[in-house]
Every structure is written in C-alpha cells, then in structure tokens.
C-alpha cells in the first residue's frame, strides 16, 4: 500500500504542546485506511497494524475512512516519528526524500504479539 503522511490540525495543535508529549505521539501513530481494504484484511476500528518499508517497521493504530474519501490502496497518517521510521533517505539528487509516497506492507498485529 502507499502511505501518505501529512499534516492534520491535531498534529499541528499537539506539537505546540511539545513533541515529546503523549498527545502528539498518539496523533502521529494512528493510520487511516479505506474501510473496504480494512474489511478485506479483517481489521476493525482501533486494531493495531504493522507497517513495513525497506527502511523499517512500526506498529500503529488503524482507523477506517469512507472509500469516497480515501481510495483503496492508500493509507494516511500524520507526520511524526512513525512516518520517519519508514521513510527512505534517497532524494534522487533533489534533497527531498519521497516523504508523501512511501510504499509499505500492512499486516494485522495479533493480540498479545505487541510488546
């Protein structure tokens, strides 16, 4: 799937409070996914998923979005430490890593597996 990290107002307001605070960390470790994709993967609201890229992996919470708002194959999360973990460092000579188009594999995290 393609991960698109972006700004949200919650990410914006919580970073004022401090980037090491719980709210910011929570906001930046939640991913939005097309509801049909979630059904296919047998995921429900609040389930934990593991995102893997060639660079690394993170476990985040999954929230559904209507298919009309978020197309199949795309997942969205607020910028933060989790998205950085997955981001490659190749800038193709531009200075800019592909920060908003990160190919990731998504898998459900079984109960008790985390930790």
């Amino acid at each position, binding site marked *: 799937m393609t991960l698109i990290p972006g700004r949200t107002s919650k990410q914006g307001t919580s970073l*004022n409070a401090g980037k090491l605070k719980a709210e910011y960390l929570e906001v930046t470790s939640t991913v939005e996914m097309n509801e049909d994709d979630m059904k296919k993967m047998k995921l429900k609201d609040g389930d934990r998923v593991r995102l893997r890229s060639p660079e690394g992996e993170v476990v985040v919470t999954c929230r559904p979005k209507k298919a009309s708002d978020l197309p199949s194959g795309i997942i969205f999360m607020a910028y933060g430490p989790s998205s950085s973990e997955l981001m490659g460092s190749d800038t193709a000579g531009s200075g800019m*890593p592909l920060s908003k188009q990160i190919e990731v594999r998504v898998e459900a995290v079984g109960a008790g597996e985390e930790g």
Partner: protein
Amino acid sequence: MSDKDNMTDNGTNTETSAAAKADAKAAPGAASGAAPGAAPKNGGDHIKIVKNATCTFCGCVCDDMDLTVDLKEKRITKAKNACVLGRAWFAEHTIEDRPAALIDGREASVEEAVEEAARILLEARYPITYGLSDSTCEAQRVAVAISDIVKGSVDTTTSVCHGPSGIAFQGVGETTSTLGEVKNRADLVIYWGGNPAESHPRHFTRYAVTPKGMHIPNGKKDRTVVLVDVRKTPSAPVSDIFIQVKPGRDFELLWTLRALVNGKKITADVEELTGVARETLDDLVARMKSCSYGVLFFGMGLTMTRGRHFNSGAVLALAADLNQYAPFVAKPVRGHGNVTGADNVVSWQTGYPFGVNFNRGFPRFNPGEFTTVDVLARGEADAALVIATDPASNFPKKAIETLRRIPVISLDTKPTETSRLARVAFSVATYGINTGGTVYRMDDVPITLRPAFESPYPGDEEILTAIRDKILALRPPRQDAAADRAAP
C-alpha cells in the same frame, strides 16, 4: 463545512480568565489608534493587550492577532482572530522551568554552552547548519554568517518542503502575486496537493476563498474553488469542484492540462493514467482560460511525491502559459512561519535559496549533495547546528543515525528528540511571542513581530550572535586572504 473548527475565524479561547475577559471588552477602544501594539493597562496591572500581533505558526503569518497577555503568569490567555492552530501556538508557549542550556544533558551556563558550541563548530571539518524556518530573519542572517565563517553548509527546512519548487523556479521562473491580489481579484482558486483546512486554516478565510476584495465584492460567491488531491481531505467541502488524481500521477495530469491549454492533442488514455475524466479536464481548462484572475496554490502533495521538482515545474509552467488568456499565478503554500524568510535571507547572502555549501570558502549550491538529508544520510557531516526544527524526529532513519553519532547543537523552544540527543542544547525564547523581529509570509511579504511577554531565555538571534562572536574570537588567524582568493 465538515471541519468547522478549522474554519472559524474568530475563535475564542476556553482558557480565558475572568480578568482577561473583562479586559478584552474594554480593550478595543483603548488599544486602537495612536499607539498600536502598545500595552494599555486596564483591568489588572498584569493583563496587557497586544493588538495586531503576528502569528508565526504557519506560512499564513496572520498579523491581526489581538492577544490578551497575563504578565504575572507569563502566558497568553486569549488570541482573538487566531485559528485552531494559532490558538494552540499562543496558548502553549508558556514559560516552562528548564535550564537555559545543557551540555551533555547537564545544566550549564549560556556562556559555557556558547563556548562549547563555538568550539564544536570550529573543530569540525564539515559542520552543517540546518532548520531556521521558525526563526526571525535577523537570526537567520547570523546563522548564514556562522556557516560562512566555519566553511560549513547551511540548509533550511525548505529542502524537505518546497525545495523542489525552488529547483523548479530556477528552471521555469514563476508567475506569482501577493495574497492581497488573490483576495482582491481571484475568481478561480485551485488548490493542488494541499490541505489548508488542516495545515493553514485561515488561508481560506483571510486570503483566498471567503474574503471580499476590490473586484470580488461577494467573497466566496464570486469565486470558484477547485481542489485536486489523491484523497478527499477536510479541505474538500470548501471546494466547488473536487478532482481526485491517482497517487503519483500529478505530473501527467498537469502536463495534460498544459497541452490542452496550448491546444495540443492528447492521447485517449488520460483517464486511465490519471484517474480524471476528459470532460473534467476540458471543463477545468475552459475555466482557467476564461477566469478574470486565476491562482493555483500547490502543496507538498506535489513536492514530496514521484516527480518532485518536475511536478512543481509543471505547475509553474502551466500557470505561465495561462497568461496568454488570463492573469494567472501559481503559489507554493509554505508551511513554517518564516521558511519564506529563510529562502530570502540565504538567497541574498549567497545567491542560492537552500542547500548551500561553503567548504571552498564561497557558496556552492547542489541539491542532493549539500542538502541536509543527503549530507546526514551519507554520514558526511561531523557537527550540526540545528535551529528551531527537529530532524531527529522527522528525518529518514539513516539521517537520524548520523545525528546520533555527531556533536549536535540545538536551539529550540521546547524539548525535542533533537535537543535530547544534542551535545549542546539551548532553550530559547519563542519568536513572535517573546522576541520581535521580521518574518516573511508565504508570498514574500515581510511582516514585523510584536512580542507579548518576556522570556527568561535568550532568543535565537542572541545565542547565534554570541556563537558567531565566540567563533571569531577563537578562530586561528587565516592564511593570506589573497592566496585563498586564488584557490578556485
């Protein structure tokens, strides 16, 4: 509008104290007029109103904040006219009890920390300076001076936001305007690859969508708003037309539009390629060619995805071509409060907007070579001066690994991942809240800051100036300047 909170132009702050409320009622008459921004003291002695203060949270740099300040508590209790992000910005920047400087995590005096920072930068073979987009122009000017003196690199967060647009600009140029022209004239407003409802809430209400302007007497009614994005963001409800493009296909879509504008033939597989129907494209082209004044705002949905500077270049070229038919401008929507100032300062001092290297004693520019992600990911830098940004939490992993290895000097208003790993960490005052100075709005318009209350911490400019002066005092006498000059 789905996301009402974001659209609110006159939000009130729930934290407002009773005293401040009483004061706010009395304030407008008292504070307007002769002494703008002065501090009329009514209500309690410790409450002051700052009129026409500037919010530096995002690139909108709204300069119409009326701040209620509790001087005793050293906090802003109310920010009239601020959006949700601005309210958080003003409310949360209070004075926290922290040492002004840390060396290796231990409390140190500012003087000790300045000396240590100067020593690190002088001893390094490839020191880099990075950040600067949340700092005043006055501080940025000193930061570039430091990089010049120690022959390191200077780069700003531009390289990871609209750096590709800067590269595109060098190839294409741009047709642009101040935001007031958009407010006064634009009847076609296109947002592409951005979500201002969440990143720049007042972009809609103060500048581009709802305000009435000289030739737009009815505000939003007189404008057509188009949103192009890969997903339906909270900005979509503001738009009259939403166009959903396939991820990573922005360039194809832009180039197709450009072909249509210039009357070129296009192939039939456009819809398959971009996800957008031909009729939708024809309609958009007709609107762009027939508008009175068109603007295309573009965001990081273009610069951070496949195509990068080609995407930005396509936007700039499309807007330029459209001027055959109608006044048309394209504008990057810039993120941080003074990232535009950083571009300007680095450009006027060196000739290049970001990613500038002084290793040879004069400025060189090469994105991919001197930009911070690359320099760090390749492990080339051996010291870093990080100002008002947090690469340790938002850079790619490889770059962060280097930051962990080398001595880092950080200046920030709050503890961050970067300050946590820094050898020398300064706590600094917040620009626009505690310190004055100049910032540039996303349309390059320079705006002055009106600080609300004093911080016990020095500002960026003060720390950087001290570091620069210390470097000048400590540096060994340079070899013959004439010999240096002959080198290149």
